[in-house]
């Protein structure tokens, strides 16, 4: 009888706390959005289910919780706290990314830089709200719209915020179809949205092979702290483009990135234990995340319009919105908004170019922020 009572007092039913239920609701929402709405399911489903797993109430001290040093979740979470998973995800991303349209029209790279403005504005905002500099930098990187980059920088600067920052970053990435289109429409005229981009020139295999080396040199000499992300990213890319190690490139863009994605998502989700997660800070981070994404989108578009003032061949300013990486969500949105105005206007390929430059841009920003905090 005593044993039964003791057992019952160890069940989740007994130990449950209202914060667990809040988080379970959030987790369920993520799972629902991932499955029913197909919002970035590769991210939202693992994270959402991870939130569920992490918020089943349990007896502390058992070695079950992700913050207890000998739990399975803790071992799997190690790849997050050390930054290893983000590095591996970037390896796979590199082995997937096709830079040919970016190489054909290098100007689009500037849009990837411009869209990082969201980061810097958010940095100031976070400081103004009283966050410590390292916390502020970690929050600011949400504006880069790049999950692994955000997790990586936060793991290095403010590990206690990994949960809320990752959740904010991924939530807004999933909500791209809701956040971006209104901003795009607000900041562009119908005529601008109808601008066609000319066919890009053909890019030679050799250019594609040389690019990752040059990219590595330039980006990582400038911001060495971006090595863990961009080093593996460009490594993945040269494996893909060289054509001599296809079996490695194939594994990198399938088994390797998938495994890292599964465990990254699962443990980041599980790191949102209600009692740790539900704090006023988390709420502020969520608000700041919305600011970051909106400004990033807007600044990309505005910068494209400014570029148009100086260029003969106009750029469709919608492409600016694709400068927030959020691969490939934002590129798709740009494409769809463009299509709506003119069903013959295919922006996808150009938007993907901005997307990949946005990935590089935000990884550099992560390097700069990290370096600023030293």
């Amino acid at each position, binding site marked *: 009888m005593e044993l039964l009572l003791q057992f019952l007092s160890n069940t989740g039913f007994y130990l449950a706390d209202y914060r667990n239920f809040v988080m379970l609701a959030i987790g369920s929402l993520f799972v629902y959005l991932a499955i029913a709405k197909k919002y970035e399911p590769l991210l939202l489903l693992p994270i959402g289910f991870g939130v569920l797993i992490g918020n089943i109430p349990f007896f502390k001290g058992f070695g079950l919780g992700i913050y207890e040093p000998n739990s399975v979740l803790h071992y799997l979470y190690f790849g997050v706290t050390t930054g290893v998973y983000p590095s591996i995800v970037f390896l796979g991303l590199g082995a997937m990314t096709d830079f040919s349209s970016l190489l054909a029209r*290098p100007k689009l790279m500037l849009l990837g830089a411009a869209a990082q403005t969201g980061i*810097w*504005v958010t940095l100031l905002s976070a400081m103004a709200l009283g966050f*410590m500099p390292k916390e*502020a930098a970690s929050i600011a990187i949400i504006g880069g719209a790049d999950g692994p980059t955000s997790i990586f920088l936060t793991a290095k600067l403010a590990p206690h915020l990994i949960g809320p920052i990752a959740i904010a970053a991924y939530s807004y990435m999933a909500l791209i179809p809701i956040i971006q289109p209104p901003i795009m429409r607000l900041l562009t005229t119908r005529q601008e949205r109808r601008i066609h981009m000319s066919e890009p020139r053909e890019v030679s295999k050799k250019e594609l092979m040389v690019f990752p080396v040059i990219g590595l040199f330039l980006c990582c000499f400038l911001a060495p702290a971006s090595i863990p992300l961009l080093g593996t990213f460009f490594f993945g890319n040269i494996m893909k483009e060289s054509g001599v190690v296809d079996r490695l490139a194939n594994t990198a863009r399938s088994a390797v990135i998938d495994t890292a994605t599964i465990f990254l998502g699962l443990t980041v989700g599980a790191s949102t234990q209600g009692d740790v997660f539900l704090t006023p800070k988390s709420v502020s981070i969520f608000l700041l995340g919305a600011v970051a994404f909106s400004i990033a989108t807007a600044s990309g578009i505005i910068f494209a319009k400014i570029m148009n003032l100086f260029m003969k061949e106009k750029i469709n300013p919608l492409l600016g919105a694709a400068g927030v990486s959020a691969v490939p969500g934002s590129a798709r949105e740009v494409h769809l908004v463009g299509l709506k105005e003119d069903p013959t206007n295919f922006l996808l390929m150009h938007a993907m170019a901005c997307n990949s430059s946005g990935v590089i841009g935000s990884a*550099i920003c992560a390097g*700069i922020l990290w370096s*600023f905090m030293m």
Partner: protein
Amino acid sequence: MYGLEAISANNGWAMAIIGPLIVMSGLTILAIIISQLHKLVALFDKKAKQTTEPPIKSKDEISAPNIFPNDILKTAKIYQVLIDKLEQPFELSDLYQVAVQNNFPHPILTVSRLRDAGILIRESEGLFIWNR
């Protein structure tokens, strides 16, 4: 500490000015280099052609195909007779056996050449199919 005061104290303004400046100038330089890349590549290609033929040929091209270009296809035709006796997919050892029984010369080596030529294809562990 909150508000502008916190920003100043934490060197926020400097960061928010220098940060985007660095990113922008970095990516601008990268864009400029990229835009010149095809010229560079072309230049190299030209130079390479002028000075030397590649000193060592890629090894894969030297081997069998260059030496017996149509032999393999002929061999394949001859082997077709054996293949017809087997059920698809078949085990390699069965192919060897019929080859030996019919006094085909060099069965193992021929089989390895047929595999290199993509005529004999491994379908799964131990089982092979004949392509064409």
